[in-house]
């Protein structure tokens, strides 16, 4: 399975941009602690630009007495993909959900520190507005039990309203599906029940749904963990393509994946942010021993 995924990454489909100038990161790796990554090639181009959009500033999150995230600070940039990695239970999901205030739905969760979106504290932004600017894709594909078209239309319409005719919404629905790379597969039958699509298609529909709100930041919580290597490869390409339109944050347990698509990687351990670094450096010349142990598969 794993080798098949890698093969996919090495033979990029035409949509992935190849950068001949990209220095081979494998060359930076010290040979004696050779990780799996020496063999893997990062085939994505260096970012064309990067603009700081969000700022996580000394954020701690408690569930009652338990501290799930401990004073984490990091930037989130448009033009880049940021990957959050770390062993299970280290607080990745909690941190990700706090970025659009979904943690507030858990009564026990308390957040201290501040998160800013374009220099505005997100606590000052009305949650429903914030959640349209910072949208989220979940681990389990979860389209709504309605047609493909209605899944997107629901996001475009005002709250619970049914106003705005299908005809009016059509261009926006098509463009969201196109951005998520799903349009070609579903265009013949947009009335198809969304939950009868394949898992990979469902997840891309969820990405289309998240994109339909025209967000500035896209959060993805292990979006490929329920998918086969083929669908994973499609979604990875998509994420890389999206990074210039939206700032992308992805949580993943698949270190290969983080290495393939991320520009920066944050490694968390038991709620602490151990290391925040560029992907090539974090995987090949980690600054912290903990990181090295983790990326070489010592634990996790």
């Amino acid at each position, binding site marked *: 399975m794993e080798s098949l995924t890698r093969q996919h990454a090495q033979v990029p489909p035409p949509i992935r941009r190849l950068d001949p100038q990209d220095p081979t990161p494998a060359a930076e790796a010290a040979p004696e602690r050779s990780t799996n990554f020496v063999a893997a090639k990062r085939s994505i181009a260096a970012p064309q630009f990067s603009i700081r959009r969000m700022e996580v500033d000394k954020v701690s999150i408690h569930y009652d007495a338990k501290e799930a995230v401990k004073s984490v600070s990091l930037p989130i940039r448009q033009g880049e993909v940021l990957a959050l990695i770390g062993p299970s239970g280290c607080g990745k999901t909690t941190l990700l959900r706090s970025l659009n205030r979904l943690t507030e739905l858990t009564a026990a969760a308390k957040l201290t520190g501040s998160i800013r979106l374009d220099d505005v504290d997100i606590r000052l932004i009305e949650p429903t507005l914030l959640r*349209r600017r910072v949208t*989220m894709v979940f681990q389990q594909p979860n389209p*709504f039990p309605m047609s493909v078209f209605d899944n997107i239309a629901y996001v475009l319409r005002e*709250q619970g309203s049914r106003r705005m005719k299908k005809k009016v919404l059509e261009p926006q629905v098509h463009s969201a599906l196109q951005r998520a790379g799903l349009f070609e597969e579903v265009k013949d039958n947009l009335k198809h029940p969304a939950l009868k699509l394949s*898992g990979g298609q469902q997840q891309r529909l969820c990405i289309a749904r998240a994109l339909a709100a025209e967000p500035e930041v896209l959060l993805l919580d292990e979006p490929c963990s329920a998918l086969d290597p083929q669908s994973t490869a499609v979604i990875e390409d998509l994420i890389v393509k999206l990074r210039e339109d939206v700032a992308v944050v992805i949580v993943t347990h698949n270190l290969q994946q983080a290495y393939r698509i991320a520009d920066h990687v944050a490694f968390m351990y038991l709620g602490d942010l151990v290391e925040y670094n560029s992907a090539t450096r974090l995987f090949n010349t980690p600054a912290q021993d903990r990181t090295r142990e983790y990326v070489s598969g010592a634990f996790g």
Partner: protein
Amino acid sequence: MTPGGPQAQTEELPVGLPGGLTEPPQPPPTNAVEGSSTWSLLDRLGLAFCWFLGLLFCAIAAAIVIYLLIKGIQFLKPSMLVTPAAAGFTEGESGGFSDAFFGTLILGVMSLTLALPTGVAIAVWLVEYGRPKALARVTEMTVEAIAGIPSVVFALFGTVIFSSAALGFLSRTNEGVVFGRSFFAAAAMLALEALPLIVASTREGLNAIPRHVREASYGVGKTKAATTRRILLPTCRPQIATGAMLGLGRIIGDTAIIVILLGATQNFSPVEGAPFPLNYLRGAGTTLTNFVYEASPTGNLNQPDKAYAAAFVLLFIVLLLNAATDLIHSRARKAGTWSH
């Protein structure tokens, strides 16, 4: 070593399986099925018992339906559904049971109109809001308590309430004395009886929706209200329908409330001087269930033929409701569900 050979091969490599690999040998085709021959004697006896019980219940249900079907077709005349019952000594003279038939329909519609929105609202509040916790616990216990109360107790309680002067406008009033028996009174108490079934079924439906589905809706900026209306309630439509179905079964089948709160008169007894629908709804009446009882050999009317005809109509209504519920369920199945 043809010139084009090796190149063509490298281009094809990523598409198919890596070169040289062949598929593993297929096992010889068999149609082996798991048999119970390896089971212990007790397990096999248990399985046999399950089969026996299943078939027995099928047989009982089929016997009832077929018997009523035959009797019904034999005795039911369409005119019975539009002819009111009348005093008479023979089956021919005593008319039909139109008042009972329409009484059942009216009560079903009225009770469900009260119980369905209330029950669904309670379930939504319990599952989606449920705060303060203490209030939610009390609500839960109240609903459970209502589910356990026999309908005759509701009936007695109803007479106390609807005989009060303040509620005189819901029934007949004679020289300051409030009669307290009417379709309004009966429907209110029957609604209370159907309520717990609707609450329980709707809660079950809401609880079956994974949390991340709600969060997906909140996560694109939808409010709780919008999520409930457009995602949660449509998703648990089948369970709501099941609850309504079970509730309606109770409503249609009840007799205590009909006798005590509806009056169980043979015919409608509209209140004079009230405008059209209100005069009937404020008056007394009867239902098919009660008619079947009265027309059975133990009842006052003793017209068993008509009892069969009315029972057949009752059964038909219930089967129709079942079919409608099944339709809603199969529609939902077509829409699919989440993998857990």
